């Protein structure tokens, strides 16, 4: 096994275990911290794929900004651990069974797809994920969606202020 494969499987196991811990943690703050670990593992996958820009943006935007927002909201709310609502065991079991059968269904579909048999993902090389080619495409072909996204941010900001102001 090469170093790339070892890194891939280690990061995958880390991501999946952390994602499961997000669900089973009773305390919401622990869930947020586990979710930050999931995002770091996914950023590691981006670095393995040599998508360096997306790896940095993932850490800054998701692990930095969004998760801090979640932590702020949880700490503002003062959610008591013993008062935290729990579903009945029966409903939880049904949810887990539904998720597991959905996973089985999707894996079966992927296994039957012949178009992707033997296709390899290029790792660790290729200049496509660097800032220079991405910036060129972003500011030439995708400049209109880029500007529209700034309008989206403005409207989201106004909406958040109006909703939160009461």
């Amino acid at each position, binding site marked *: 096994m090469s170093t790339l494969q070892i890194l891939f499987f280690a990061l995958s196991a880390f*991501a999946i275990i952390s994602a499961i811990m997000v669900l089973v943690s009773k305390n919401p703050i622990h869930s947020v911290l586990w979710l930050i670990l999931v995002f770091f593992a996914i950023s590691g996958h981006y670095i393995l794929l040599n998508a360096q820009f997306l790896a940095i943006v993932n850490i800054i935007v998701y692990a930095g900004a969004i998760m801090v927002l979640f932590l702020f909201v949880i700490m503002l709310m003062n959610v008591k651990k013993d008062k935290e609502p729990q579903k009945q065991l029966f409903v939880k079991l049904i949810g887990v069974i539904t998720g597991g059968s959905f996973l089985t269904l999707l894996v079966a579909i992927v296994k039957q797809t012949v178009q992707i048999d033997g296709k390899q993902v290029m790792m660790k090389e290729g200049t496509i994920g660097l800032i220079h080619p991405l910036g060129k495409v972003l500011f030439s072909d995708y400049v209109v969606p880029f500007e529209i996204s700034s309008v989206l*941010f403005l409207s989201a900001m106004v*909406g958040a202020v109006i909703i939160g102001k009461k």
Partner: protein
Amino acid sequence: MPIHYYIYLSLALFCIGVTGVLTRRNAIIVFMCIELMLNAVNLLLVAFSKMFYGFGLAESPNSIVGIDAQIFVFFIMVVAAAEVSVGLAIIVMMYRNTHSVDINFLNRLKN
């Protein structure tokens, strides 16, 4: 690395997110599971981008086939950030009105 491994990893993360939405009642945890599903899709997009880039590179040495997927991932992150700000504001407002973040109180939207 075969593309199958990336597909299975993304499917596992996505289904963990679906299970979380179905099993938890805390609105913030449900929201975090939606973020998890978005990230699983992002990972799959980047993996497919590098797969098609490999094909394009075999034909011409300076092709940028597959760069659109990484731009899409960037826009998904932009939309997710806007969505989180509005969604958390709604959750805070709901907490002010009902003093709880239980999603079972959300089944009656009026009052």
